């Protein structure tokens, strides 16, 4: 029992893979390396799929590529609205990254979103994008004024929103992935390694992971939609 608990805690921690020897040494965490793998995966797929695009007489490969891109863009555009068209590529990128990194546990990697730093960085990026979108749509004056909407008394709450929103985005994603990871590890180390984990993995890794990627993008686009709304 003691050993199994130790094993579990070891699996939870994010190890340093190697250290870049600059100054005191910059530790490179496991989540970064897995992110690089995901990036390489996407870059290779993008190169393969966008190789030799043409406007007339498209091949099968290009048809599939166009289908994927249109479907994803349509899905996100439905959430963020017509005015938020500029932000669709970013949101789709985040969705693809999160989708793959949440389900990468199936292939034996540790999901990078299990590291609090990754989800925090994503949440901060999202909230900065929301504010920039607000400034772009309304101008600095209009953006500052939007903090006092709908009435002046809610200003402190609106400012508090700047911090609670990224916190909740970050914690939701982190907690979900961590929870799925802990349950999967528990089933594997404490119960059985046979068919049962595969069944649970279908729910916890695939369904929950993809759902969380969707929810993250959905909430971000909702915030953007709210920020760029002009009356």
């Amino acid at each position, binding site marked *: 029992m003691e050993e199994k608990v130790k094993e579990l*805690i070891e699996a*939870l921690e994010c190890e340093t893979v190697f250290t870049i020897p600059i100054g005191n040494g910059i530790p490179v965490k496991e989540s970064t390396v897995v992110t690089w793998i995901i990036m390489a995966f996407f870059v290779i797929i993008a190169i393969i799929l966008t190789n030799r695009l043409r406007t007339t007489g498209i091949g099968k490969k290009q048809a599939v590529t166009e289908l994927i891109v249109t479907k994803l863009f349509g899905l996100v555009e439905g959430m963020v609205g017509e005015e938020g068209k500029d932000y669709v590529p970013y949101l789709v990128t985040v969705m693809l990254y999160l989708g793959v990194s949440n389900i990468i546990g199936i292939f034996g990697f540790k999901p990078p979103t299990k590291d609090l730093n990754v989800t925090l960085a994503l949440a901060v990026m999202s909230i900065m994008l929301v504010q920039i979108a607000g400034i772009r749509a309304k101008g600095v004056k209009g953006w500052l004024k939007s903090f006092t909407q709908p009435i002046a008394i809610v200003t402190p709450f609106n400012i508090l929103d700047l911090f609670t929103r990224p916190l*909740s985005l970050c*914690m*939701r994603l*982190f*907690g*979900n992935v*961590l*929870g799925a990871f*802990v349950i999967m590890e528990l089933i594997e180390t404490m119960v059985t390694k046979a068919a049962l984990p595969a069944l649970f993995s279908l729910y916890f890794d695939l369904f929950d992971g993809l*759902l969380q990627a*969707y*929810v993250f993008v*959905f*909430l971000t686009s*909702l915030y953007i939609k709210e920020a760029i709304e002009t009356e």
Partner: protein
Amino acid sequence: MNGLVAIGAGIAVLGAFGGGIGIGIATSKAVEAVARQPEADGKIMKNLILGSALAEATAIYCFVIAVMIIMMLKG
């Protein structure tokens, strides 16, 4: 000491109760809505997922706190 830490983590997870009830209510209303207006299926589904994600967040916070209690206080 370890026993007390475990009890504390267990109490922290009790908050997940609220999240469960919230999602249950939301789902029951969504099912009612779909039964009444089957053509609004897509919109209801979207709102249900949003509501569930927000309700679920409270339960997730409880879980994160419980894990942190175990990780930080484990003697």
